[in-house]
Each structure stands twice: as C-alpha cells, then as structure tokens.
C-alpha cells in the first residue's frame, strides 16, 4: 500500500481533476474545452482502476506496473488529442487550419500505432526499465508539440488569456514529466521520481482549474508582454 504522503497526493490530484471538470461546467466551457475535460475524466477513471489494482496486487507487483504504464501511455495519447484541440483553436482563423488538423491527426495516429507496435513486441519488458523509456519518449514528443504550438502562439500574436495559460501549463507538465523520466533512465532514481511525478500530475489540473475559474473566455492579454526579451 502507498504511504500517507502518496495517498494525500493521489487524493489531491483526483480532487483537482474533478475540480477542473466541475469548473468547466460551471463556467459553461465544458464543450469548448471538451478534449481537456475528456482527458481528466479518463485520468480520473484510470486513477480509480490503478487504485483497485494497487489494493489487490500491491505496489511492487507486475500487474500494477503493467497497469500503470499501459494506462499512462494511453492517457498521454489522449492528451495529444487535447493538444490537437488546442492547435485547432490557435489556427482556427487561418486558411490552412484544415491541413494543420489533418497533420496533427496523422501524427497522433502514427504515434499511437508506433507505441502499440512497440508495446505489443515488448509486453514482457513493460515491467522493466523499458516502460520508463517509452514514457520518457512519449512525454518528450508532447513537449516538442507544445513547444511548436507555443512558437505559433507568439508568432500569431495570440491574445486569449485562457488559451495562452493552458498551453503554457501543458508545456510545464510535459517538460517536468520528460525530465523526471529521463532522470530515472539516467540512474536509478525511482524514489525521487516517485515523488516528483505525482506532484507534477497534480499541478496540471490545478493550473488549468485556476485558469478556467479566474479568466473568462473574453479575457485578453498583451502578446508583447509574453516575450521574455522585449524587442
């Protein structure tokens, strides 16, 4: 069974995820940010399922590790879907938005197919270091995609506060996760990452909830203020 601190982090994470969905409904933004809401609803279901496996099989069992990393890989792909939703929002006003969407869907399907092929060939290795490598690579792809989206936001002079902050929080999330898994792959730092990973997992729903709660869809900011070095 996990310790009291891990349990507190787990409950906090679940509360923040639920909080985001409730806030979205309350602020009438559920449909507008449908992919983000679907992602958190799936995360919540996955957390409950993981907890069920944890209670029945124990934290060091192969069943739990397999469930954890398999669900994590699927959730990351769903998060890519949410990222595509953000891409289409940013490029909505441009003529080539259709092509952007098509390329993003192709990328998503490609990554899903590649991950599936890799996992199918290495099922027995999913309970070893290979699982960390897969997670590290999936998060890194997410990080690159978010970075490209952030570049586009700056280039297009995006002013929607909500959209800007949601993308930045996602960038922070992918960076922290990719760094944590890379740290584990560099050396056996399971204990450090075992603490960092769930904490970072709590921060994304918290940041998104604050954004949805605090700013209306009409809130705008000055794009020039976002650039670290003023031109």
């Amino acid at each position: 069974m996990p310790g009291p601190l891990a349990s507190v982090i787990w409950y906090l994470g679940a509360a923040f995820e639920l909080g985001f969905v409730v806030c979205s409904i309350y602020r009438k933004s559920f449909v507008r940010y449908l992919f983000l809401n679907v992602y958190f609803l799936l995360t919540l279901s996955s957390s409950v399922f993981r907890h069920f496996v944890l209670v029945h099989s124990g934290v060091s069992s192969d069943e739990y590790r397999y469930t954890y990393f398999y669900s994590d890989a699927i959730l990351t792909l769903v998060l890519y879907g949410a990222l595509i939703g953000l891409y289409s929002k940013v490029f909505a006003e441009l003529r080539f938005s259709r092509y952007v969407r098509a390329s993003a869907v192709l990328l998503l399907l490609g990554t899903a197919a590649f991950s599936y092929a890799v996992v199918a060939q290495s099922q027995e290795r999913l309970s070893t270091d290979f699982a960390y490598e897969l997670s590290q690579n999936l998060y890194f792809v997410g990080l690159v995609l978010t970075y490209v989206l952030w570049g586009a936001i700056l280039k297009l002079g995006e002013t929607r506060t909500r959209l800007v902050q949601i993308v930045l929080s996602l960038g922070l999330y992918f960076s922290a996760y990719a760094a944590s898994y890379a740290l584990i792959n560099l050396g056996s730092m399971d204990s450090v990452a075992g603490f960092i990973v769930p904490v970072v997992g709590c921060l994304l729903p918290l940041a998104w909830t604050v954004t949805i709660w605090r700013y209306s869809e009409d809130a705008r900011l000055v794009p020039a203020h976002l650039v670290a070095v003023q031109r």
Partner: protein
Amino acid sequence: MMAALIFAVSLVTLLMFFVSYCRSLMAASSRHTLSAEVRDVTGIKDLPCARDYVKVRQLLQLCPERPDDRAGLRAVGIYYDILDMTQRSIARLFPQLSDWTEHERAGCAGFAAVALDRCIAFNRETLAREGEY
C-alpha cells in the same frame, strides 16, 4: 546518451515555460490601474520597482488572500526568488542580465500590488456584506 539529451532539453524548456507562464500571469493583470489607497500604503508613485515586491508581500500577509490569487502569487513568488538569486549571483557579471532581472522583478512587484488591490477590495466587500446582516 538519449536520456541525458532529453533531460537537458526538458530542463531548458521547463525553465522557459515557467518564465512565460509567470509573464502571462503578470501580463493578465497589467491593465489594472492601482487604486490611490494601494499607492499610499505601498508608496508606489508611478510604476512599481523591484524593491517594492518585498514590501507588498508583507502587506499581503496582513490581508487575507483571495482564493483566486493564491496559486498565481505562489508561482510569481517562486519566479521572484529565482530572479533574486540570479541578480545576486551571475547577473553581477552581465549588466544586461542585471537590467533584465530588475525589469522582471518590477513586474512581479506590479503583479503583487494588483493582488493587494484586489484583496483590499474583496475584504471591503465581505465586510460590507456582513454589515448588511
């Protein structure tokens, strides 16, 4: 090798996204005009400067925080501490970096001052509502 590369790139982007996130928080409150009351209390005449941050944070501790501002203030607080550390160390060697950290810390002070303004207004509203009952 690959893990080391991903770790290094992720750390750089983590820092970049964190700076941009804090800047977006500050940018979102940049249009707010400070009330005369906050200007009096903090001593901010025209635009806030880096030194004002500590004073404003102390005043904020006296005022019950608005729940909406708590997370933002914490993030900007961490950003200010990083800038402060940079200012005291490597920024001494690079004058341009020193100017930049000074500018950013002034932005943090501005954000905190806006939070203080909102906090005072929020508490005044709460007291007025309680007075009605």
